[in-house]
């Protein structure tokens, strides 16, 4: 009786936790398959489903660097392993979608995405959500591409 009541009210609720509940069910098979796929095929979980990459835009990269400095550099360095992994070469290890989803949606990523879960197991500090906008996340990605291109 009580269980029925709980179930019935979640169906007409629009709170965030209910949405998470729904996604969790759907994401289970995806989670299993990522274990076998190439990381360069894994787009992660979050608002970004596809990113089109062109020539490296150095203006965007410079703006991305500034945002990175304010919001990310307390835990990430480019060349040095710090609180989180060194970011040099990240665009060769991860898809652009995965990188942006990790920046924008870290809580869900470390909970459900195999690659992100493995990183948490290794580094122990969960990635902080710094409320980065899609525009800024895209610029940070450009900064990473620019850094990787220099090598």
């Amino acid at each position: 009786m009580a269980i029925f009541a709980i179930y019935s009210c979640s169906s007409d609720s629009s709170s965030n936790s209910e949405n998470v509940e729904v996604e969790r069910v759907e994401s289970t098979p995806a989670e299993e398959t990522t274990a076998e796929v190439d990381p360069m095929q894994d787009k992660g979980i979050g608002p970004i489903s596809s990113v089109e990459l062109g020539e490296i835009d150095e203006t965007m990269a410079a703006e991305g660097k500034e945002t990175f400095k304010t919001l990310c550099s307390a835990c990430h360095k480019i060349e040095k392993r710090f609180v989180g992994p060194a970011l040099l070469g990240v665009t060769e290890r991860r898809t652009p979608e995965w990188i942006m989803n990790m920046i924008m949606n870290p809580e869900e990523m470390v909970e459900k995405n195999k690659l992100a879960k493995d990183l948490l197991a290794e580094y122990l500090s969960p990635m902080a959500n710094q409320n980065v906008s899609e525009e800024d996340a895209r610029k940070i990605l450009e900064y990473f591409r620019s850094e990787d291109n220099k090598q």
Partner: protein
Amino acid sequence: MKTIKNIIYTLVAVLVLASCGNTSSKKKDSKSGALSGNAAEKVYVAPGEHDEYYAFVSGGFSGQLAVYGLPSARLFKVIPVFSVDAEKAYGFNEETKPMLNTSYGFVPWDDSHHPDISQTNGELDGRWVFINGNNTPRIARISLSTFETEEIIEVPNSAGNHSSSFVTENTEYVVAGTRFSVPIPQKDMPISEYKSNFKGALSFISVDQETGHMGIKFQLIMPGFDYDLSHPGRGKSHGWFFFTTYNTEEANSLLEVNASQNDKDYIAAVNWKKIEEYVNNGGGKKMPAKYAHNVYSDETHTATSTMMNEVLVVDPTEVPGAVYFLPTPKSPHGCDVDPSGEYIVGNGKLSADLTVHSFTRMQEAIEGKKFAGEAYGIPILNYEDVVAGVVKQPGLGPLHTEFDDKGNAYTTFFISSEVVKWKLGTWEVIDRKPTYYSVGHLMIPGGNSRKPTGKYLVAMNKITKDRYLPTGPELTQSAQLYDISGDKMELLSDFPTVGEPHYAAGCPADLIKDRSAKIFKLDENKHKYAATSESEAKVVREGNVVHIYMTMIRSHFAPDNIEGVQVGDKVYFHVTNLEQDFDVPHGISMIGANTSELLIMPGQTETFVWEPKQEGVWPFYCTDFCSALHQEMQGYVRVSAKGSSVPISYTLDGDPTDAE
């Protein structure tokens, strides 16, 4: 046994159903059913659910303002206002010390009494809540976005700032009336010459509608009575303000006897619009007066205190038609205006009856120039000409009245410890319920506006005696929640409060909760000593002053190893929280620092001062459990002898923090 089990199952199911809908219709349904007498169900807010109302309950002599949810009566936050609060570093960190500055210097405490929520068109708008400090007269404005005290203005020429802080219909003014009359300006004189020499100032403090910033527009210098409580007119009486008085005898000693001689005292009716016009046309006199005006900025995360040096005073006899006295029996205390603005209720605390004046009759008497006489040049109207009705013998010691949305009034009785419900217009008593014990104010959410709600009433008691587990001679203070949605009031719960629950203001949660701030944006941080990224973290020596620009994020400080500090230095820790996520504050404290911890919100910068007294290596750490690695959030400062050659250095993981 089986029947009891079934009943329990049914109860559980009903509770679950009632709690999952935020829609009140479901709750109403369950109320009209067989469980209508179930007080526990009515105050139950299931885990994870939100309350329907906010209640801002003053802390009385704690000087603070507590935020509760109704109907659960759960305490969410204590907002420091007039008293220092080590938990939040209020009055301890360098940023908020100026908030407690006054013309007497730093005053770390006050007695906070009457919160009132800002209004637009006579309805609560949820922008700010104002509250008065009684002892060293001050008015504070608290943001209902950040839930922090943003501004405090001192009120000169005032003492025992009690008929405060009530707002007019569009928050044009927040009003502060003096309880104690004093020499204006202050001077050395015999106390026995009180009569006709002491004066009472009623201050009209204008509020900037954009910023909320306050400024004293004018002070009305009234006869030397005690101005006890006040309320604005609304609707038809908008533009007027009403103040109860006692001690119209102008006694200066043993007031409990000597201020209770007159059969009637007055309610002073002040036409503030008329005085505003007079002042705007150059009326009034500027007089020297020292008072502090303290403003906190969410951009600099810092308060500034400005000492003001003059105030505009108005002599009421020079503005004809601006002030009248309405005779009101026996030392009236509460002064409450009904939602329509027609009725002004004077609660004569030594009277057996409640007196209700009519605004319409008052205006007719003024037009007909029917005066009974005058006091210090201010016309006194005839009691018979202004009274609308009398509630006969409702109880003993009436104090305060609030209103619901159905034309009912509710008055507290201190001596007989009860709330009495009566009907506006017919003046008949409908219901009465005991309080436990000695009730002062009461609050109905929206009860000070044109649109009160009619669901809950909070009674605030002065004494609890046997209501709770005893805790030594000092017992908790307490409030009580009543359901007033039906014909009869129903007591739902008792709840303990922080300090004395002197008065409260309440409003529907929807008015505020979606506008509640979540973080401060780092790129908007204009604090003078902010380090908005680790690359800006540094340590700078200026003579014997050392400024540490430090950052914090889960779960480290930058820098966390500092050397080159010396005994005798004055070390400022300016600490910026780099987090940009909701609900991730960090704290910091330093061994031996003669101050409190800091509790820093995401994007915010705060500062504490440490004066190391001994050589050694001294640790600091994060005080707010912030993450799984919170215990690792720590650092060291090396302190060398005065004049030592150890250079200033600051590192994190072996590298200087400002290295690329």
